């Protein structure tokens, strides 16, 4: 593709595997899911594993295999992290499950992505819903951590664990895309693609497509340009303000970043916790601050207003900036 030409499709979709054989990695999972699908009667499934390892792709393949052309009528995709509460999920499931499946397969399939975003209470409700419609519907749930899914739900599903894709597997997909799109990718460039995407295949492909919008000759420099352009603002700036004693500056910046980049309090805490060790302060302070960060992460779950909790954490960074470790210990 020449410079300045644009794509007509998002590559993660254009190159999403359509058959079991197209998928890379997850050999064991594939073998078993394929066998279940071929029997035309799947149980409820739970796909657990990191992002970008093929959970949604496999769910779609199952559905395509089962229903062929009429898959759209028999398939409902929901994302738990987007639905406002379990009631919405139940209503949608109810509406969808009311009518009988079209075709040879006696059930419909509901794919509930990011099921671990549901609270315990919501999962309890989901469990009853799964039972109520078990004669007409099969659920495929996906999550990052199966430990966040209630036992009674897990026991109703066949659980499949997805592993992070190996580098060579991702390379196979990337090579295929490069051939089709007329790209040249140096080995170094592939390394950069892989590293900056943390082994998440979806992100690797997105990054590749974005880079190709500059030039078909993919180089590490080019990739880094895109990475820099798509890089979210650094939480470190917030800590810099706080350590310099400017509390208002710090909280203003924090709100700004959280709003503009749509990141949650949990994301912020994670970033702060990683950042502490790079800060120019005493080791003893780092220990105290890490302890405090852990405490605030706990309160984030217990409390009701994430921002207040984060402000409280920022206030302790202000103190740390003044070198006061003793006060930080306890109040």
């Amino acid at each position, binding site marked *: 593709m020449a410079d300045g*030409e*644009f*794509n*007509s*499709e*998002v590559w*993660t*979709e254009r190159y999403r595997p359509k058959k079991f054989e197209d998928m890379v990695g997850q050999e064991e999972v594939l073998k078993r899911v394929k066998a279940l699908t071929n029997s035309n009667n799947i149980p409820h499934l739970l796909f657990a594993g990191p992002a970008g390892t093929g959970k*949604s792709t496999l769910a*779609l393949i199952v559905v395509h295999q089962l229903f062929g052309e009429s898959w759209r009528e028999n398939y409902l*995709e929901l*994302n738990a*992290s*987007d639905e406002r509460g379990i009631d919405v999920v139940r209503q949608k499931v109810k509406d969808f499950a009311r009518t009988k499946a079209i075709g040879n397969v006696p059930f419909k399939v509901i794919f509930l*992505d*990011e099921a671990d975003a549901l609270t315990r209470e919501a999962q309890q409700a989901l469990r009853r819903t799964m039972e109520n419609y078990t004669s007409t519907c099969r659920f495929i749930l996906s999550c990052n951590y199966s430990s966040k899914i209630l036992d009674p739900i897990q026991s109703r599903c066949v659980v499949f664990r997805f592993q992070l894709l190996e580098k060579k597997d991702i390379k196979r997909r990337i090579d295929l895309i490069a051939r089709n799109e007329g790209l040249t990718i140096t080995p170094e460039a592939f390394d950069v693609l892989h590293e900056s995407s943390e082994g998440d295949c*979806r992100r690797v492909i*997105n*990054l590749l*497509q*974005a880079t190709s*919008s500059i030039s078909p000759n993919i180089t590490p420099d080019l990739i880094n340009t*895109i990475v820099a*352009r*798509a*890089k*979210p603002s650094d939480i470190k700036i917030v800590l810099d303000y706080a350590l310099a*004693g400017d*509390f*208002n500056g710090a*909280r203003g910046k924090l*709100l700004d970043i959280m*709003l*503009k*980049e*749509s*990141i949650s309090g949990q994301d912020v805490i994670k970033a702060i916790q990683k950042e502490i060790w790079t800060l120019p302060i005493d080791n003893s302070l780092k220990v105290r601050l890490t302890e405090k960060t852990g405490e*605030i992460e706990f*309160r984030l779950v*217990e*409390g*009701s*207003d994430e*921002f*207040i*909790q984060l*402000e*409280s954490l*920022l*206030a*302790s960074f*202000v*103190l740390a900036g*003044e070198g*006061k470790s003793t*006060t*930080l210990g306890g*109040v």
Partner: protein
Amino acid sequence: MINQENMPWCEKHRASCFADVKGQELAIDKVKLFLRSFPKKKSVILYGGPGTGKTSLAYAIAFEMDAEILELNASDLRDKQKIAEIIGPASQQRSLFRKNKIILVDEVDGISGSDRGGLGELLVVIEKTAFPVIITANDIWQQKFGLLRQKAEMVQLKDVDYKVVLTLMDDICRKENIVVSRDILTSIAIKARGDIRAALNDLQILSKMDSPQLIREIGERNKEQSIFAALQYVFKNSKIDDKMTKIYDEVNMPIDEIFLWVEENIPTEYKGEELFKAFEALSKADVFRGRIMRQRHWRFLVYENFFLSGGIAGVKKYNRAGWTSYKKPTRILKIWLQNQRAKKKKTICEKFAKHTHISTKQAMKDWLMIRILLKGDDIRKRLKISDEEIEYLEKPLAV
């Protein structure tokens, strides 16, 4: 840096001459009389409720006299030495560039009567000065101002009639090139209760919003009076007694809103260690609030209330003097404004998320990458991106 764009309208459109100070004809006449008879009395006190035009009138005096303003705020006045340094010599020297000079002491209520004698110093200055001393005050009838009142000409600024506020807002709407319905302007004017600054602030906020029904959010002024009093009590007193723990009972607003007021104003009152401890208390209050929500265990309300009042008050060792002007919480408004601005972003992300089988939340996080991917007509057509959304995508800093 302040540019004209985000400058508060009450500053941007501040009156510059007597004719611009609306609704205070009587006060202006009295001021004129005072200036003509100067130095029979050397000082004038402009007093009245917030936003009635005291500071504007002071600036207008300077303009009419072609005088330079030497302004002192409350914290300068608390310092005896500073007063002696600044006002002492300055009031006896003629300005280099202009013939005249006036000394402006804005918000004299800020001076404490007892500590470090700022008030006494001010009286000395009035005694010695060669230039008019203009003093503004919300409440001048406190006992400690007795002597000051005798030395100065008293000029009251009355609460501005809502019709005057209305004409003023009309004028500003024309200058800012915005259209707001008559009903809404009137309701802002009435709700302001004679406070021009409040009215202009509300108008400015409203002008940034798509939906004028948000006027309800802006709320009534007297609600603020009660929260001011409560905050004053919590932030100035250190003793935790019965009154302290029940202080928010008298505030006519939901507790969640009180949280926001406290949160916004902690840094105005506390620094360093006190700031840390106050936020620690607020954080704990919030944890109990979360537990109440989740477990419906209303007994926890006691603890929530305690940390929000006594917990915040108790972080300081001594009572605190002085008067602080508390700020209205801005966080919720900022979130709302950002959501308005990012409406298009949200709808684009919804389309992208559906198309690529990811959550909208994930798409929002990947926004900067998605912007790069959504270049060119074909891909936009495939995802059914609308013209308005394309316009948003093309904006250089659509975040």
